């Protein structure tokens, strides 16, 4: 398949691995920010192919994982108590709220629909003028343009029964939070290619300078990741700290102007609480005042108390790169995809899910 098979070529992969092995002279700790990258690393068996000196730690770039418990509770409340049609991305459904998950609410009769695009939710609002339709707008900067467009689209169509429950988060403040943790041992970052496709790379240069760490904007295919790791290792070994772009086929330094216009027409930057990581300043988007009618939180006056997180889940430490899934005493025993203690075990971008589904047992086998 064009643009896929060439980035999964075993010969090219072997060549990059060889170059990485040649370049490495000492241990390095590198964080891949995005959960999609974590999954690709694990699913393609790359972690086991890398030289032992390279310690990949897994970042907070899993939007489902960082969505606060209270927001899931809000979504369930809207579906159960307000009788709305709640549209959601599929992998949000298994994430535990304080009482139950969206999947359990759906089984109990709430009208919750798995959608692949917020525009499908707008279509539902058009088809059901007698019902309120709410889209659970979760995601990083990557999904923000589509969610913003759904609001603009609903406005253009004159739909008054559509709104979004927004839980948008931004990558750069999360990198800052990770680096500011006194226990952090991270020496370089693979920045998230898709986020930079939208936002460009402008926000990352200052982080490189401030923290003196190499950062390489990297894609998601095996060859992308190997090349990104090689570029990072070369910088580390040379004692450099630069912003580089591996994912040039997608990422332009200025980003996608149309997408950013849509985001900032509908959203503004706000402080936000991250599941497992707490409050991070300026780390999220909220709906701007002129579009308040499309903001489910304001529209339905939802007032749900902050819910405590499960104290047995170490997702915060995992997303800050301070621990790995196998360090968790509950991994694979008390916490499994069927009975998750936290979101990373059930999100399609969660590090625990990646280990559980693709490699956790490999480690067990090696032992």
């Amino acid at each position, binding site marked *: 398949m064009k643009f896929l098979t060439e980035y999964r*070529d075993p010969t090219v992969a072997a060549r990059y691995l060889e170059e990485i092995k040649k370049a490495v002279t000492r241990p390095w700790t590198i964080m891949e920010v995005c959960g999609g990258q974590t999954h690709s690393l694990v699913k393609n068996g790359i972690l086991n192919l890398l030289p032992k000196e390279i310690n990949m730690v897994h970042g907070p770039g899993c939007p489902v994982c960082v969505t606060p418990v209270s927001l899931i509770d809000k979504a369930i409340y809207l579906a159960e108590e307000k009788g709305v049609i709640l549209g959601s991305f599929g992998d949000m459904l298994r994430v535990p709220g304080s009482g139950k998950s969206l999947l359990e609410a759906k089984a109990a009769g709430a009208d919750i629909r798995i959608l692949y695009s917020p525009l499908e939710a707008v279509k539902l609002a058009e088809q059901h003028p007698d019902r309120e339709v709410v889209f659970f707008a979760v995601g990083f900067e990557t999904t923000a343009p589509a969610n913003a467009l759904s609001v603009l689209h609903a406005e253009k169509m004159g739909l008054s029964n559509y709104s979004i429950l927004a839980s948008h988060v931004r990558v750069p403040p999360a990198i800052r939070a990770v680096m500011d943790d006194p226990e952090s041992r991270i020496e370089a970052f693979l920045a998230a290619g898709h986020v930079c496709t939208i936002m460009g790379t402008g926000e990352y240069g200052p982080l490189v300078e401030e923290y003196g760490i190499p950062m390489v904007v990297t894609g998601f295919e095996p060859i992308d990741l190997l090349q990104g790791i090689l570029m990072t290792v070369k910088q580390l070994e040379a004692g450099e700290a630069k912003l580089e772009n591996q994912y040039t086929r997608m990422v332009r330094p200025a980003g996608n102007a149309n997408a950013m216009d849509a985001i900032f027409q509908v959203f503004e930057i706000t402080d936000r609480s991250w599941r497992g990581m707490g409050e991070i300043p300026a780390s999220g988007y909220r709906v701007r005042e002129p579009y308040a009618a499309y903001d489910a939180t304001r529209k339905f006056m939802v007032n749900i108390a902050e819910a405590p997180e499960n104290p047995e889940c170490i997702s915060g430490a995992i997303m800050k790169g301070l621990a790995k899934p196998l360090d968790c005493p509950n991994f694979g025993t008390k916490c499994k995809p069927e009975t998750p203690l936290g979101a990373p075990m059930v999100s399609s971008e969660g590090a625990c899910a990646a280990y559980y589904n693709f490699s956790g047992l490999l480690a067990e*086998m090696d032992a």
Partner: protein
Amino acid sequence: MTKMNLQCPMPKLDFDTINLGHGSGGKLTNQLLDSGVFSVLKNDLLDQRHDGAILELSGKTAFTTDSFVISPVFFPGGDIGELAVNGTVNDLAMCGAIPRYLSLAFILEEGLPMTEFWDILVSIRNACAAAGVSVVTGDTKVVERGKGDKVFVNTTGVGTVHPKAEIDIRRIMPGDKIIVSGQLAAHGMAIMSVREGLEFESQIVSDTQPLNHLVKDLLDEFGNNIKLLRDPTRGGVGTALNEMARDRDLGVHLEQRALPIDPQVAGACELLGLDPLYVANEGLFLAVVSGAAAGAMVGAMQRTDTGRHARIIGEFTDQHPKKVVMTSGIGGQRIVNMLIGEQLPRIC
């Protein structure tokens, strides 16, 4: 095999939708059966219209049942009727049997357009003809609107076990090869492409087809070299292989590069973030075959239409018992776990 598509015009009827009376057992039921089921699915045994069918069977007999609740009822490449015949026919074939007779039970939802029911019946007739089986007994019930989803179908089947068949998981040994007879994930992705809220444009069609003719030919030629047959429907190839590894207490080693997947299906899976190893199939099977016979058997399969995409995708090993380990496209290793919960809403 080319799919039979015999058209058959619906006769003029006094009703154009199914109502509760059609399940009452009285005159309306008889009308529905006379003008629908019996007129389409004619055969000597069914025509006796007895409470059950009296069958002549000898030797080892395979027996299986399956229910079909697929939504939408008509989907690219097939419909619930064809699926219900092929599903049970294939389950019998996986027992190493020659499918013979089916029962057919409908649960219809009040309000179902008669034209749709008719199309399903014609499709069932065509699928039976293609597979070489007869519907010999059945049942029709009607439930109130909202208590069903247009139509649910159950089929039960019996078949005569092939004299050379020795399908038994306990005979699998390390070194035995795993063959897949066709391209993965087409059925599940065809359903996805038309599901409300997920629709996407594609030419992907379900792979639903009867596998019994190919299986019979393979048993004729390769006999007890074939140790296990399994059609990986719900849960996909990944789940079926995990069940085999667990039940035989051996490991399975898979080669990702060997998995046959249509590029369009692979693209749709990428787009939606689904793993083709867990997507449902309705027209392919996994065969576990002695290492010595595997090459010849896959060659024989590739010379048929049903098996033209057949490939050896892996083998059983005494390493890592009960686990399926796959060598990825770039040479790394990963676990292939059993599918947990649903990857999608109902797909078969």
